[in-house]
């Protein structure tokens, strides 16, 4: 009995490596910032102008295929997209600095259905408050950046999605 208790205590407080885990939650930005508009093309050749999506909540994810936490969060972004698409919430992945072929190859291993846009010359990311990849923003229907997440997340986390959905109201 005493041995079991000691083992349980050791397990409860053992310093498990947390380096590989996703981050948590969304940070509400302290000031209201209008999202910088952009026009970017997706892998199907369709142009997306952010301001055309005014009236919708938009999740904007800056990423790259070589970035480990970007890859790690992609499956959960797809799962979130499967819920959010039918609710009228948009998700845009903006790849930074890579070409269509590279992204296309990536999607063979990480199939996603939400639009993947190309910011090949990094002009769009330079207009946004991004320092590292991945960084994700949630833009409200008025076009304001409300939330930010630095590093990957489990995007289908119900608590996280509740924050996103609440912006629709």
């Amino acid at each position, binding site marked *: 009995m005493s041995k079991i208790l000691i083992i349980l205590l050791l397990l409860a407080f053992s310093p498990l490596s947390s*380096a590989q885990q996703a981050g948590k*939650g969304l940070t509400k930005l302290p000031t209201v910032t209008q999202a910088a508009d952009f026009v970017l093309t997706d892998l199907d050749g369709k142009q997306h102008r952010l301001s055309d999506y005014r009236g919708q909540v938009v999740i904007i994810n800056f990423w790259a295929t*070589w970035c480990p936490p970007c890859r790690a969060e992609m499956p959960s972004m797809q799962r979130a997209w499967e819920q959010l698409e039918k609710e009228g919430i948009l998700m845009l992945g903006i790849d930074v*600095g*890579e070409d269509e072929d590279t992204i296309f190859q990536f999607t063979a291993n990480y199939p996603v259905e939400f639009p993947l846009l190309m910011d090949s010359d990094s002009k769009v990311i330079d207009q946004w408050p991004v320092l*590292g990849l991945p960084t994700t923003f949630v833009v409200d229907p008025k076009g304001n950046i409300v939330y930010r997440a630095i590093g990957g997340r489990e995007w289908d986390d119900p608590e996280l999605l509740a924050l996103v959905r609440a912006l629709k109201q």
Partner: protein
Amino acid sequence: MTEYRTGYRMRNMLKYCLALIWLSMSLISGWVSAEVINGEEAQTGLRTWEWREAGVSVQLVQRLPDQTRAFFQGRGFSTAESDSIARACVFQTIFRNDGKHPLVYDLDDWRITYQGKHRSLLTRERWDEKWQAEEANQTARIAFRWSLLPTRQGFESGDYNWGMTSFGLPPGESFDLSLNLTINGNVIARSIPGIVCAADQPGN
């Protein structure tokens, strides 16, 4: 006799409880106080150094020079340019804030102690001066910029990021790293001793 046995059992029980409390407290204090954990990745054999304190952690994972060469050649750098990055003691760096408070860091405030002398990290800006002077390929420069850990960044609770850090030392060399962070407005300075740059393959 029965009273004696009951008393004996009570004393043993008390000792046992005290031992458990002591064990719990020491483990809890170990959890929240600063610690540096050295390790080795089982699959790759790459060595790691991780500093943790109050829910904040910085982990450095060795990158083999060949790994770095291949990565940057694949992103548009020439062989010579890729080699110069690969031989600059590059680590994958995983920075997490699972603590309760926001933090900010500035790599320009961090110092390397190597052979008794202090030096700075090779940040994005320092590399960019080199790429500008050498008129390096623009696509490669974009990939490089976003591959490196940002020089300055703020993390709210729950944020984390990955990025490469380069220390500008030859492969196989050892150094101490002094790191500074501001957590909830308080500056803390800590050290990770005995970090080793991954060795290069013979012939490189």
